[in-house]
């Protein structure tokens, strides 16, 4: 269960958001929407613990993430704007790297996983020669062999074609139904069953309450 208590985020002396409270229970998909520059990525950076908030805390399983960084990261899968795929390595090698670097099922057949993300035939070509969309699919392949319960995705659908978006959506829904949690930001409309769909609309801090 992911929770934030009156989170305030200040970037370069600008208040992005203030007193943000948030609870995401297992089985829920939280869709964070908002105009550009309102601080969506900064909020995700705070949730992953990569950056620290001006005040307020983020809790995972009722414990502050800053206190239990290593255990928290065992349950966390994060996909940022940058895909995290090394261009010199092939799709296969990248996946092996992900497998070892994160807690994941090692008995899974990588060729099968790459098939699922639509990279059949591209397994042993250096990622540099693949398109941006294909490189993104290598990063998405992690979802098929990860044991992490919490997925935090920063605009996962960018540079993906229709069919890849469809399969990613089903994967998210399957993960949520198995008791996982998904937090994602995207400008696309999502077709996710009402039961586990939650929306958060981040607004630009209005002028008055700009001063904390």
């Amino acid at each position, binding site marked *: 269960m992911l929770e934030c208590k009156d989170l305030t985020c200040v970037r370069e002396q600008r208040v992005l958001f203030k007193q943000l409270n948030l609870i995401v229970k297992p089985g829920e998909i939280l869709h964070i929407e908002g105009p550009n520059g309102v601080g969506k990525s900064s909020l995700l*950076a705070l949730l992953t613990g*990569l950056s620290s908030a001006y005040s307020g805390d983020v809790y995972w399983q009722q414990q502050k993430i800053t206190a239990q960084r290593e255990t928290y990261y065992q349950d966390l899968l994060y996909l*940022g704007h940058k895909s995290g795929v090394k261009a*010199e*390595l092939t799709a296969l090698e990248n996946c092996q*790297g992900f497998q*070892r*670097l994160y807690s994941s099922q090692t008995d899974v057949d990588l060729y099968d996983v790459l098939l699922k993300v639509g990279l059949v035939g591209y397994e042993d070509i250096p990622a540099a020669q693949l398109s941006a969309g294909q490189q993104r699919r290598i990063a998405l392949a992690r979802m098929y062999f990860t044991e992490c319960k919490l997925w935090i995705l920063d605009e996962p659908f960018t540079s993906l074609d229709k069919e890849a978006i469809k399969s990613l959506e089903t994967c998210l829904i399957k993960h949520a139904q198995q008791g996982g949690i998904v937090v994602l930001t995207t400008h696309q409309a999502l077709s996710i069953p009402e039961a586990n769909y939650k929306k958060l609309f981040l607004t630009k801090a209005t002028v008055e309450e700009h001063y904390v």
Partner: protein
Amino acid sequence: MFNVFIQVVRQDLLAAFRHQSAILNPIWFFIIVVTLFPLGLGTDPTLLSRIAPGVIWVAALLAALLSFERLFKDDYIDGSLEQMMLSPYPLAWLVSAKVLAHWLLTSLPILIISPLLAIFLSLQIDAFYALSLTLLIGTPILSLLGAIGVALTVGLRKGGILLSLIMLPLSIPILIFSTMAVEAAASGQDYLGFVLLLAAMLVGAITLAPFAIAAALRVSIS
């Protein structure tokens, strides 16, 4: 725990071997800088042999500095540095794997060809052993200290000059003790004391630097 270490090192070496230029550049730089000195200062062997230790060590220092940019920059650009920071394994542990991979790729080749360059500078034969020994012990310290500077400046656009400004003062003791050791060896005196001091610094750097690098990464990536 340990296979993650090997995995990171293997991946880095694999990535580097895929495009050779990144490895050869520091070596070429090292050779060119060393050959500049005889051209600049004349070819009188006694003069050259006196300045040989200092020249080779300063060239090794600058070559290491040149290659540091590659240590975290590529990973920062393609996002794998971020991913590495979010892995359940301690960041200090992963970072030391990356520094080891970087050391193998850049300083080891310099160590291998340094005797050749010592001949260029007509260094006395019995100083060769001391030179390679000090390079073997000294360059890992440079990599560890430099990695702290790189971690601090990885998020910045114009980090290059800043990196040298941060790292050079820290590498002065290494330069001093190594050149003194090689000079002592060249004049036939016992140089073990200096080498032991360098080894002490290496042990200190190995234990403390990874945590400083991890803390610096947490600052520049957030």
